[in-house]
């Protein structure tokens, strides 16, 4: 009877059960579906950080003057917040695409059941969906970088590297966001996302340096992902590079890996086991 056992597909383990090497099919589906959605709404997301930059940069900038970054250099207030707003835009874009979109597809569209009934595995779906979210993040980030360049807020050539950094940030948030969304069952649960995002936005050295807080508050803030993203992007746009930036990159690499594994396992538990 051993011949039969060899022919039977291995069940319950191995990468082959999770991965068909075809996440681009999921991305393609997202792009085709995007054609029928409202492009104005998609495009409007770009304006949010621009409005913030204009309001805070002009208004508060005139009251605050120059600000010292964590790297110890003094920059104009607009140049201080612009990289932070870029990181926040990456976070928001990735989170909205990987939570609201995924929530609908999961609970109402029943899209993933269909996808998983094909040769696609849960890792294809997770990675495809997350990479699709990154495209939108890339779009917003590129637009915002152009505006920063025009306003003279990119202080060094290393600002170019902020684009891949933003993708890294978006990747981290999208993969964890999708994993968390798989636990949500009603609209009201989705509100918790804002409850987590708002304090991160307000406290992560976005609008003022983290140094104003007592030590213990600082260490709490440093545990959260957005602070690492803000510091990374700010380091690149102001051109003050240090080896510490690699820690921020490492934080996101761990976050991405964790999110991907988590999402894949959840999709498998929800639809395949």
């Amino acid at each position, binding site marked *: 009877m051993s011949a039969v056992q060899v022919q039977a597909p291995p069940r319950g383990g191995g990468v082959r059960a999770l991965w068909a090497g075809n996440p681009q099919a999921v991305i393609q589906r997202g792009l085709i579906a995007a054609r029928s959605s*409202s492009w*104005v*709404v998609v495009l*409007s*997301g770009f*304006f*949010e950080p621009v*409005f*913030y930059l*204009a*309001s*805070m940069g*002009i*208004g*508060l900038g*005139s*009251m*605050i003057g120059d*600000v010292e970054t964590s790297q110890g250099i003094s920059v104009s207030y607009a140049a201080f917040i612009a990289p932070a707003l870029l990181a926040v835009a990456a976070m928001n874009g990735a989170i909205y695409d990987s939570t609201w979109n995924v929530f609908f597809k999961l609970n109402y569209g029943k899209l993933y059941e269909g996808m998983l009934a094909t040769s696609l595995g849960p890792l294809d779906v997770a990675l495809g969906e997350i990479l699709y979210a990154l495209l939108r993040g890339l779009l917003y980030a590129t637009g915002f970088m152009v505006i920063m360049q025009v306003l003279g807020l990119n202080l060094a050539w290393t600002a170019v590297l902020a684009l891949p950094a933003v993708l890294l940030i978006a990747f981290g948030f999208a993969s964890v966001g999708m994993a968390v969304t798989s636990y949500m069952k009603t*609209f*009201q649960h989705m*509100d918790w996302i804002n*409850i987590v995002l*708002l*304090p991160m936005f*307000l*406290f992560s050295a976005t*609008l*003022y*340096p983290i140094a*104003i*807080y007592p030590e213990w508050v600082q260490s709490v803030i440093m545990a959260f992902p957005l602070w690492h993203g803000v510091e990374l992007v700010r380091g690149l746009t102001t051109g003050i590079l240090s080896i510490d930036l690699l820690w921020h990159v490492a934080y996101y690499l761990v976050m991405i890996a964790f999110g991907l594994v988590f999402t894949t396992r959840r999709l498998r538990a929800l639809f395949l086991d």
Partner: protein
Amino acid sequence: MSANDPAAPGAAAATATPTLDELRAEAMEWGRRPRARGTWYVTEHMVRAMRAYGWTIIVGAFGQPVLYLLGLAVGLAALIQQPVDDGGQSVPYLVFVAPALLMTSAISVATEEFTYPVMAGFKWRRYFFGFSASALSSRQIANGVMVGAMARMAVTVVLYFAFIMLFFLWLQPGATTPATAWLMIVIGVLGGLAFGVPLMAYAASIEDDKGQFALVQRFVFMPMFLFSGTFYPLAVLPLWLQWIGWISPLWHAAELGRVVAYGKEVDPAMIAVHIVYLLVLTAVGLVLSWRLFGKRLAK
């Protein structure tokens, strides 16, 4: 035995065949209370419906003031060490921002309560048509939605006010005039209505959801929040951006809030302008809502 209770409408039907007049009288009798108190019935429905997301409301109403006051007012205040020059008057930054943040909270409740619930009432769950098939008038339905939203705004604003007072007690004792500062609650609700009631009229006019509310959020609420002199006096902005403040209910409400919170010196005529502007926006929005609700429910 309710069937034998002569006071209960419907008792006549059990005893003998009623005449048309009796039936009409009975129907009128049943409808008397809803006709008289219809607004409150709708309000009750709207408030009960909020229980579905009650936790969000509570966490938001507690969390937002704390986060914004700590994050923006305290954090930024540490950066802006010199007091703000508010029209010649020197004001600590926290004291300057707090009234505007309170007004913003009322208006952000308005953007939630006057949009999707209205859309749901007409389109997704269609309960407004159910109300309309009863003795309620379309006007009462619009009024009920408004009062329901007012109730939530009031809860949010009262909490916000309480937190502001605690923060001031902690960080800026003596900076406010408590005798008038509580009026921020009234102004907050008025500000929320001035923005929300016209929005209700707009929501009633939408037949298909194509993301209009997301656009309102991004292109109306967000710029209003950022350019209405919330974080700095409006005069700091260049003139070509100041008009956003002039037409924004948030700016008018925040200016009134600053008058009652710390006695900002304002020309009495300007106070009248602020109040009248907010009232006119609310009134125009309400009249428009009545008409649009009536038209849509009669369809």
